[in-house]
Structures are given as structure tokens and as C-alpha cells.
């Protein structure tokens, strides 16, 4: 009798345990889902740009000897790279805001030139944060409001003249941000005088001024929100989630990083203008197309930022802390080694060399000699393979974490 009951109990307990375990496991899996789906499917036609402005540091020797921990890596990322980059960006946004106000108060040539310079400074710094599409930036889809290009210039002009607009709308993403400023500062006419005339025009001048300050304010506030969130709470959360599961910071950040490199740097800045995804080249798809001669500079900034992140180089400094390179070294120290970190850094080097062959205006490069652009794309693609295939295999991180059972 007692025995029978015991057997039954065992059976139900086991079943219960099975149920419990399978369910609790599901919970984990579910959590991941929300955080991992790329909200950012802005396809290849609309690409955001990115950032940068640190000193050109090449592959520093990352802290040899220091024991690798994911926590140390996350701390380095947050404290020495991500937060300082956002701080610099917000600083630049302050200046941009100031310059925009000054220009709208007194639309003269001097203020106009200052404004254009502030725009470029901020745009370059943007390249240093664009890859950090995580936390608040991800939540508010920062990238989609700051740097979608190509700009819908016609739509933007209609919106601007109508005067009644909601910049928070998803439909307005390609009518604001750096590319909108690019157009407003460089695309309205052929000379400074012609452009300034739009802002001093009796009929529509006020509308142009208002729109200009509105989009600068919006960029300012969005980036400030993200910085504030990092400083107030997200930093600790980011560092605490130091496991290797798909939900954790390391996995998300690495996925975001590679996604950025592949979609926004490789495809957005080079591939799409060179026409690798279309039947013909599209020189008007370059970043900052109205200004023109800075598209290569923006690309270089973005590339350096990506490489610095890989090597753990602190923002705008020479020192480096723990990052992907250190992690790779740590893992390869204990087994046969493919020197994946050198593969990737060497490839970054080759890309830089290739960039020296390009016109500072990538749009002109496409028009004049697109072969060089196509070659650049191939150089960039090679690192997609090193990072996405070789590196991720070593780090045991699943690409775009797929939420499904395995074998």
C-alpha cells in the first residue's frame, strides 16, 4: 500500500518537476525575445549613420595579463567607451543647439558657418555611439530618429511649410536628424548666401528657422535622454547582466555591434551607394550627400569607432581595457589558436588602406570609379565573416539570437 503510494508520488513529482523545469526554461527564453528582435529593420534604403571622434588609436595591446571576466569587459564598455561617447555627443549637441539658436536669431554668414561646423562635429561624434543600440537608445529607436538617410527632402519640405508636424511619428523618421540638417545647411542652394536667404525670406523664413530649431532640439533631447538613462540606472543593469545567455548584456551588445557593422557601416555607408544590392549604383544614397565632401570622413570615424570597440580602446584616449580582443585572447590562450583578433585587426587595417584610394566625397567616387567602392565593400565584407563566423563561433554567441530549441 505504502509502496504504491510512494511510486505514484515519485511519478507525479517527476512529472511536476519536468513541467516546472520546462516552463521555467521557457520564461527565460521568452524574456530574450523582446530584447532581441531588431526593431530596426529600416532595410537598406534607409540607413542611419553613425559616429565618431576618438583619436585614431590602432589596436592597442589590451591589458595583457588581466584576467578576463565578462563583468570587467562590460564595465570597460560602459564606463570608458559608451558613456564617454554619449557625453561627448551631448556636449556637441549643446554646441549645435547654441549655434542653431544663434543663427536663427541672426542669420548671417558667420553664424551659418559656425552652425555648419557644429553640425559636422556632432555628426562625427554620432559615429562613435551609433552602434550602441541597446537600453534606452534601443527603446526609443534613437538611430531611426537621428540618422536615417536618404532624406525624404520633398516630404520634409512639405512638412516644414505646413508647419504642423509631429516629429515623434515613425513616418517622419526620414525627415529629421543629421540628414535633414545636411539638407537644410547645404542642400537648399548653391552658395551660403542662397541658403541663408531661405531663413531670411519674408514668407517662409520663420518656418525654416522653426523647423531647424525643432529638429536640433529633438536630437538634443533624444541623445540627452539616452545619456541620462545610462548614468542614472542602465549602467548598473548593463554590467550586472554579465552572464553569457542570450538575454544578457554581452550577447546583446555583440549582436548589436555586428549588426551595426554589417547593416549600417558596410551596407549603409558603402554597399548601397555602390549599388551592390541593386542593379545600378546609387550615388545619392551616401551619408551627408548634400555636403558631399565629408562622407568619407564619417565612414572613417565609424570604422575607427568599430575597431576601437573591438579592441576596448577608451573613448578619445590611447588606453585600452577589456573587450572582444581580450576575450578572444583569453579563449585562444587555452586551445589551438586561429589568432582571430589579428585576422580582424589586420582586416581593419586593409580597409583603412583601401579608404585612402577613395575620394572624400563617396558620391563622387561612385560616379567616377565605382570599382573602388565595390572593392571597399569586399574588404568590409571580409570582416563580417571574421566577426560573424569565426569570432562568434569562438565566443559561442548565436547570431541574432534565435529563440528556438536546439538538438
Amino acid at each position: 500500500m505504502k509502496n504504491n503510494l510512494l511510486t505514484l508520488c515519485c511519478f507525479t513529482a517527476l512529472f511536476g518537476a519536468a513541467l516546472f523545469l520546462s516552463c521555467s526554461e521557457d520564461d527565460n527564453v521568452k524574456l530574450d525575445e523582446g530584447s532581441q528582435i531588431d526593431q530596426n529593420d529600416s532595410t537598406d534604403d534607409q540607413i542611419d549613420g553613425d559616429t565618431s571622434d576618438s583619436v585614431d588609436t590602432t589596436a592597442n595591446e589590451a591589458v595583457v595579463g588581466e584576467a578576463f571576466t565578462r563583468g570587467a569587459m562590460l564595465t570597460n564598455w560602459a564606463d570608458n567607451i559608451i558613456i564617454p561617447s554619449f557625453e561627448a555627443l551631448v556636449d556637441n549637441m549643446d554646441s549645435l543647439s547654441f549655434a542653431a539658436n544663434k543663427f536663427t536669431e541672426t542669420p548671417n554668414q558667420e553664424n551659418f558657418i559656425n552652425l555648419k561646423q557644429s553640425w559636422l562635429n556632432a555628426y562625427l561624434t554620432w559615429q562613435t555611439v551609433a552602434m550602441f543600440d541597446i537600453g534606452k537608445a534601443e527603446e526609443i529607436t534613437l538611430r531611426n530618429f537621428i540618422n536615417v538617410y536618404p532624406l525624404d527632402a520633398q516630404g520634409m519640405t512639405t512638412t516644414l511649410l505646413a508647419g504642423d508636424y509631429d516629429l515623434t511619428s515613425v513616418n517622419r523618421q526620414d525627415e529629421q536628424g543629421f540628414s535633414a540638417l545636411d539638407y537644410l545647411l547645404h542642400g537648399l542652394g548653391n552658395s551660403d548666401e542662397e541658403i541663408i536667404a531661405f531663413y531670411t525670406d519674408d514668407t517662409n523664413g520663420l518656418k525654416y528657422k522653426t523647423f531647424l530649431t525643432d529638429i536640433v532640439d529633438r536630437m538634443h533631447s533624444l541623445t540627452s535622454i539616452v545619456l541620462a538613462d545610462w548614468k542614472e540606472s542602465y549602467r548598473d543593469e548593463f554590467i550586472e547582466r554579465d552572464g553569457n545567455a542570450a538575454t544578457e548584456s554581452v550577447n546583446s551588445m555583440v549582436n548589436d555591434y555586428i549588426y551595426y557593422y554589417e547593416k549600417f557601416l558596410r551596407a549603409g555607408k558603402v554597399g548601397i551607394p555602390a549599388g551592390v544590392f541593386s542593379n545600378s549604383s546609387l550615388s545619392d544614397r551616401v551619408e551627408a550627400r548634400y555636403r558631399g565632401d565629408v562622407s568619407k570622413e564619417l565612414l572613417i570615424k565609424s570604422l575607427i569607432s568599430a575597431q576601437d570597440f573591438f579592441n576596448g580602446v577608451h573613448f578619445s584616449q590611447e588606453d585600452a581595457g577589456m573587450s572582444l580582443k581580450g576575450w578572444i585572447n583569453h579563449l585562444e590562450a587555452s586551445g589551438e589558436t586561429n589568432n582571430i583578433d589579428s585576422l580582424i585587426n589586420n582586416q581593419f587595417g586593409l580597409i583603412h588602406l583601401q579608404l585612402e584610394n577613395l575620394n572624400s566625397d563617396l558620391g563622387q567616387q561612385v560616379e567616377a570609379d565605382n570599382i573602388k567602392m565595390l572593392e571597399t565593400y569586399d574588404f568590409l565584407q571580409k570582416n563580417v565573416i571574421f566577426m560573424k563566423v569565426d569570432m562568434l563561433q569562438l565566443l559561442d554567441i548565436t547570431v541574432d539570437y534565435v529563440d528556438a530549441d536546439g538538438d
Partner: protein
Amino acid sequence: MLINSSYFSKTTSSAPLVIFRVAFGLLMFISIIRFWALGWIDKLYIQPHFFFSYYGFDWIKPLGDLTYLLFFVCGLSALFVALGLKYTWAIITFFLSFTYIELMDKTTYLNHYYFVSVLSFLLIFLPAGNYFSWDTFKNSRLSFSQIPQWNIDVIKLLLCIVYLYAGLAKLNSEWLLQGMPLKIWLPTKDYLPMIGFLFRYDWMIYLFAWGGALYDLIIPFLLLNRKTRAFGFIMVVFFHLLTAILFPIGMFPYLMIFSALIFFNYQFHQKVIDGLYRMLRIKKYKGHQIQNVPLQYRLLNKVKIGILALFFLIQIGLPFRYLLYPDNLFWTEEGYRWSWRVMLMEKAGNAQFKIVDNSSRNWFYVNNEDFLTSFQEKQMATQPDFILQYAHFLNEHFSQQGMTDLSIFVDCFVALNGRKSTRYIDPKFDLTKGYESFAHKSWILPFNE
């Protein structure tokens, strides 16, 4: 010819088969609910634009919103199996619906799902509904407490095949000597409480690799032998719960744990059934004995035995078909599926397709994201049959846009078990000129150690 050898006329209690049926049905029912609740039906079978078919099964596709109905039918039939309600129809329905689901997209292929399909096929031929079931509560004349011994033994045989082949597949240098792919997977589990720190040691990886292989190879014998059975079962529970903690393998560990109960003697199962009777307050029927079954039943038995004999021949032979292909099995994956090769490799790849319009000489790359989910893209980039099928899909897609004379090439790099990535597919081969068949795909570049 009558099958009258002494083995096939031996009978035994039907209790083990009944417990097996209940556990299997309930686990499958839970699996379907879990799959549904996680949103995977939508994610895997509704959202994608394109689905990878198995060779010869391209007529099996997801059914749009009706896919939910398919899962509903599948889940309901699993519940019916557990209850023993219209058992034969329920298990046939379950087998067909579950197998249909698995055939819809080979992206989701898992040995576990294959195991479920195979097992449910086997259960169609077994009288698992003739005792302790809804059917027999309604009509006690259907109830048999004795069934042929082979009805139980075939399940044991299938389980032994699964374990032994899984064990044999691990006897390769990657697994045993390189410790791959566990050397990639386990160290990243070092954040786990209690056991995590162990994975920082190399010897631990080898212990897991050798232990895992040994486990698969000896567990059938431990379970078959009465004296070692209890120990074997403890091993089963330990091993599968460990894998459940370490790897995202869903319900499979629980399925294997409950399946292993079939090895216990009938007294154990009878006690469980008696306990359930009391718990559910069901009046107990004395089952009929099976001895005096009429001839046609024995004829049917003969047919069943014939079918199952063929079934097991296929099960035993199929995993060896890889020997018919040249080159490295892990690299080409020709003859890899349906062979209980579980967790044997870590493979990652990247495939960039180049579409060349032969009439204008224009070319462009494909953005895979436009057509595939990230899961599909990941699977596609490392498996030649996926690459070929996708290329043909692209050809069709762009033909419809007016580009009728296309060549399609792929720039594909694959890394296998920690090796550096190398080119996988001949970049000069026009994939529109390749066709799926059982023959070796000569455009897979040879594996370089």
C-alpha cells in the same frame, strides 16, 4: 505463413505500454502548448516568406492561419492519445499532423522531432489504448491486460537504437580528441550556479565528452539488465536533466526520461496504474486476456510485424548512408540527418548571393534579410541543400521581376568546430544549374583539415 515462433506468441502485461502512452501523450500535449505559447508558430511558420522543403516534400507548406488549426489538431490528438480516447485514430492523427508540421520547413529540423515522428509511427501499430483508457472505460470488452511481448520490446528496441547510434556518432576524433564542440559550448556556461566553475577546466570538457559517449553506448544495456536497471535509470535522469540545464533543448530530456520507464518490469507500471485508479476513483475492470484472439487478429499481427520489421531495417540502415558520400560528413552534411547525430558540431557560416543578369551583365548582391528570417539564414549558410534551394527561390523571384536569364553565385564561408572559416561553395558554380538529388554535390569545396 503464420508467425508462430515462440517469441511472437509470448505475452506480457500491457501496463508498461499504457504508462508509456499516457506519458508520451501528455508530454506531447504540453510540447504543443509550449510551442504555441512561446509564439513559435507565428515566428517559424507564419512570418517567413519562404520555407525550406525536404527533398521530395516541397508540396508540404505551412497553411497560413490554418497552421494554428494544424497545431490544435496535433495537440488535441496528443491529449486523446494520453486519455486513450479513440486511440488508434488519435495516434494516427498525431503522427500525421506532427510529421506534417516537421516537414513544413527543414530549418527547424531536430533529431528530437524526428524521434517523436518515428515513435508515434511505431505507436500506431501497438495496442496502447486497450487498457486503462477512455475507450476501455466505456467498453470493457476492449480491455486487455495482456499483450504480445514484442509490443513492448519494439519500443525498447527503438530507444536502444537511438542511444547506440548517438553513441557511435560520438566516436570520432573531433568529439573524443579535440573535445569539440563541447570546448566551445561549455566554457560559456561558467555563469551557472554550483556547476558553472567546472567548465573552466579543460579536463572537465573531456570528461563530459567521453562521459557522454560512454553514457549513450552503455545505457541501453544498463536498462535492459534487471540488476543494473535502477542505476541506469538514475543515470538517465541525471544525464538528461544535466543536458536540460546546459542546452536549450526544450522538452526532449523529459521525453527521454519518461520513455526509459518502459524498461521497468510490469509490476512497477501496474502499481502506478493502480495508484492512478485510486486517485481518479475509477472502478477497475478486470481486463480480458489476449490468448484467445481470433485468427484475423493474428493475421493483422502478421502484417504489423512485417511493417515494423521493414521499419527497423530502415532505422538501422539509414544512419549508415553517409558512407556512400565522399568527403567529410560534418562538412558536406550529406547523410547527416535522420541518424541520431546529436550536438556533434558547431558550425557557423555566412553566404552572400550574387545575382548576375546574363542579358545586361549587371549584377547585385542579395540582402538575405529581405527573404529569410535570421534563423533561416543561419541554417542556410552552413547547409548545401539549403543554399541550393534558396538560390532557386531567388532565381524564381527575380525571374518574376523580368530578369529571366540569371546566373546565381554564392560567396559562402563556413567555420566548423572551431576551425578558421574557409570557403564552402565553389564561387564559380552557377547555382541555377544545380539540382537537388541524392547524389554528391560536387560544387561543395573539399574539406581541408
